[in-house]
């Protein structure tokens, strides 16, 4: 009969051995195992999202004809507005191109817009990410910027065969170059704390001392375009306040992110037309 003390210690001994062996497993094996586990779960995720969509469809079927007529009218109004906006956008793009040619500026890196539905939202205190329903089957590259109606959503961190993982701008690990609206000097944005039952927040560092934010008049934070990953001028959030940093050379501040970020159902991936001109991809953890 084995001594009871050994029996008590056996699970912890096993844990120690497994942890030690796991540390010695080659990275390539871990990478292969991770990809295999990810791809095994992907059909389940997509099916669950499909079931949710079906649920929404049948819920909408219960609406009355009057509701549908009212919704159709609203859609027609919105469509008319967006058609006008699209024409203005075409004119501005043509003018932009003409001015660039006049000034001999390098051509703007082109993007191909790939709309994707959100399969799953995963917002913990340590990470904030989305799984979207497009992957290498739609040529989504790692590191591609992801946007939504309110501005920047995040960037693609991992790409599977039919799904991709998007790290959101609210994720504490995401950092990007930004500018305060009306200013050209770059600041450093990083995802911050995400309090329960509240809007996500981020932080900015290296804000010039002369950038002033007044209570009741917050300033928008936009992408700077530096680094080549995100196009310039996309909204990130609102700089609510900035205080001098301990070094006294710059300010640090807090950025309030759009609450809609935590309810996204559809996003757009900006797939670079000339991938060699964009920044190197973000390494997977």
């Amino acid at each position: 009969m084995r001594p009871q003390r050994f029996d008590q210690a056996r699970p912890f001994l096993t844990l120690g051995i497994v942890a030690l062996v796991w540390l010695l497993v080659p990275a390539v094996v871990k990478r292969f195992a991770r990809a295999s586990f990810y791809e095994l779960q992907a059909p389940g995720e997509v099916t669950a999202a499909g079931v949710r969509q079906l649920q929404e469809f049948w819920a909408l079927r219960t609406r009355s004809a009057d509701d549908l007529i009212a919704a159709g009218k609203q859609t027609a109004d919105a469509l008319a507005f967006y058609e006008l906006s699209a024409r203005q956008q075409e004119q501005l793009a043509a003018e932009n191109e003409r001015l660039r040619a006049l000034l001999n500026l390098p051509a703007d890196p082109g993007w191909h817009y790939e709309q994707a539905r959100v399969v799953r939202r995963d917002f913990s205190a340590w990470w904030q990410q989305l799984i979207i329903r497009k992957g290498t089957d739609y040529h989504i590259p790692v590191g591609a910027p992801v946007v939504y109606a309110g501005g920047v959503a995040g960037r693609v961190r991992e790409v599977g065969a039919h799904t991709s993982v998007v790290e959101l701008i609210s994720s504490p690990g995401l950092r990007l170059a930004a500018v305060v609206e009306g200013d050209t000097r770059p600041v450093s944005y990083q995802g911050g704390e995400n309090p329960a039952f509240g809007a996500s927040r981020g932080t900015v560092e290296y804000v010039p001392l002369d950038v002033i934010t007044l209570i009741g008049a917050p300033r928008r934070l936009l992408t700077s375009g530096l680094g080549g990953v995100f196009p310039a001028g996309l909204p990130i959030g609102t700089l609510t306040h900035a205080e001098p940093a301990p070094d006294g050379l710059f300010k640090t501040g807090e950025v309030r992110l759009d609450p809609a970020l935590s309810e996204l159902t559809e996003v757009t991936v900006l797939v670079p037309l000339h991938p060699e001109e964009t920044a190197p991809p973000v390494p997977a953890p």
Partner: protein
Amino acid sequence: MNHRLHPAVLLLLGNIILVTMVAQANHYLAAWQLHLWLGGLLVTPAALSARHRAGAAVVFLTGLAMDATSPVAFGTQALVLLAGHALVYTWRDRLARSEATAQAMAALTANLVTFLLLAVAESFTAPRPGGALGRLLADLVASQLVLALVAPWFCALQARLLAPAGGRDAN
């Protein structure tokens, strides 16, 4: 010829069901910036009803499946769950293993321990360790409440799944 499935396979199946359901719950809870962690419930049936090696393998594989979709070092959650399994396994002889209350208490304790272990593991890579204590506390409270509600159901489900395979393993 024996066509019965190995208990470990059935336990893994049960765990996959729970992981999928928690992922769906977290999808909806994202709107409130809440995140459920039910690691304690994933380890409890495996620790209380399976042989040590089979239970540990089930828990480790479940953790790897969770790691594959999370931005953590691959194996982090697997090792955290294995630690939870080791903890509950050492209690199993002193617990009334078939009682729902004992199972729920073991799951609650294991959940608290595994949550704290994950928080410590993530604090090494977090840009601002300890910067989200309020959020962690809210997630922990929500997770414990949900676990207390679903533990009797999940333990009963695992017992039902194991029944065709001959029920609980002796040791």
